[in-house]
């Protein structure tokens, strides 16, 4: 029983990162109706960015977010201007198809580029306090992962406030719901698309930073993170960032339980089973509107 509880706690902590990774994908998909399958590669880039910021400047790894966030916002603007801005010109029905082609192309290119520049080795950020462990009732909770979970939750909270309080945040939600009605309200929908894509990329960068701190990055982690994010988006549904975060926690917990019950290899299966069950039983997801 204690082993299960221990696994569950670790699963929830990883799940917080799933939630953060999914939030960016969900935002971009919900607003632009574009499925960015290179989202995991953006997370990978964020991880490397954090790694090099810490390695070169000696900053505290969590402080590296202050550099990685603006950098990834900027990357989002560049990617939108150079690639995804063309996809949203197409009709909504053809956007997903076109975005899949562009996304897979981008994913392959970024993966190859990362191998070329940084080799295929795994890297992770080591900190002096990285080994600290909190002991609660016989359970061991790594301090780093607690901080990571708290930071992921804080970022989701900030995003939620942006989307519900900020003028352009409301415009982004309006565009997600009905872009024609948004235009008729005087909203420059293209700008809402750009902002949503940049925010989504910034979320990927933040997730990547936390992955590099608590886990590890290598050029090939992209696909796995895209897949996890996609499962969480389907599980949680569109429209609520907090719902998406909870969806991430659910996936993390489910993975831990299935790994404990059926053995390690089944960790990866449960997400796909959830994916299929949700699509059949509740296509709008747990929290979808």
């Amino acid at each position, binding site marked *: 029983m204690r082993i299960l509880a221990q696994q569950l706690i670790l699963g929830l902590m990883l799940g917080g990162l799933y939630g953060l990774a999914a939030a960016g994908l969900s935002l971009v998909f919900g607003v632009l109706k574009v499925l960015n399958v290179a989202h995991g590669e953006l997370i990978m880039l964020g991880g490397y960015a954090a790694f090099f910021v810490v390695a070169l400047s000696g900053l505290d790894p969590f402080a590296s977010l202050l550099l990685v966030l603006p950098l990834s916002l900027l990357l989002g603007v560049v990617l939108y201007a150079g690639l995804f801005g063309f996809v949203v010109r197409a009709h909504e029905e053809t956007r997903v198809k076109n975005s899949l082609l562009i996304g897979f192309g981008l994913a392959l290119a970024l993966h190859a580029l990362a191998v070329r520049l940084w080799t295929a080795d795994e890297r992770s950020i080591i900190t002096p306090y990285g080994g600290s462990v909190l002991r609660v009732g016989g359970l061991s909770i790594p301090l780093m992962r607690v901080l990571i979970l708290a930071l992921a939750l804080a970022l989701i909270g900030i995003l939620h406030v942006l989307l519900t309080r900020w003028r352009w945040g*409301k415009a982004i939600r*309006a565009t997600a*719901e*009905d872009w024609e009605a948004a*235009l*008729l*309200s*005087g*909203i420059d929908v293209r700008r809402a698309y750009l902002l949503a894509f940049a925010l989504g990329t910034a979320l990927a960068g933040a997730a990547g930073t936390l992955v590099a701190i608590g886990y590890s990055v290598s050029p090939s982690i992209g696909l796995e993170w895209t897949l996890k994010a996609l499962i969480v988006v389907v599980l949680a549904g569109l429209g609520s960032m907090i719902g998406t975060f909870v969806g991430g926690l659910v996936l993390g917990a489910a993975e831990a339980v299935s790994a404990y019950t059926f053995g390690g290899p089944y960790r990866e299966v449960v997400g796909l089973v959830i994916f299929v069950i949700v699509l059949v039983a509740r296509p709008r997801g747990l929290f979808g509107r």
Partner: protein
Amino acid sequence: MLEVRDLEASYGDLRALGGVTLTVGAGEIVALLGPNGAGKSTLLKSIAGLLRPRGGTIRWDGHDLGTLGAHQIVERGLALVPEGRRLFGSMTVAENLELGAFAPRARPVQAESLERVFALFPALRDRRTQLVRALSGGQQQMVAVGRALMSAPRLLMLDEPSLGIAPRLVTAIFDALLEINRSGVGVFLVEQNVHASLTLAHRAYVLEGGRVVGEGAAAALLEDPHVRRAYLGPLAVRV
């Protein structure tokens, strides 16, 4: 003043508008009548910038609107209440109204606009924190008209505002349109409720098969034999 000249629009090979010419003067109420599929909604969407016309010109106070995006046309003072209301259902009444004032020109006067909307539709004041999708159809239409008014328009265009709404609320909305017009805002109204709209309007156009087939003073059209036969039916005698 809105001047539409020789406007052509099509969906693929299907021609929806075949050279429409009409004007809406400043502060005027103009009704647009016509059967389903005549191109009424297409005309409004073209003016609002949601559809690129195939030919012809749309001028507003002498300036061509042709190359502007829909959000820029709102900024110029034209607002459209679209068919089916198209509100942001997962947001509150207040948020919908606030988003209506998104255009830069509308923002400085947002507070006054909001008071104006609540004065027109007092029912909305108490419901401002409610989600829009929880409202009745008529109340939703009030929000839709209110959202368009929040952009401080000089011309308000409405696509079938009475569709699927309880008669009592239709009266409330038409009264509001009259009130809006009295404050100097032009109204361009597409309606199935021909009798009510001709009673409200100063002038009207009849659109059939993508062309203007009749126009005139609203009072005269109410007596026109073709209009009576086609749009008012035998009950029209009861005025």
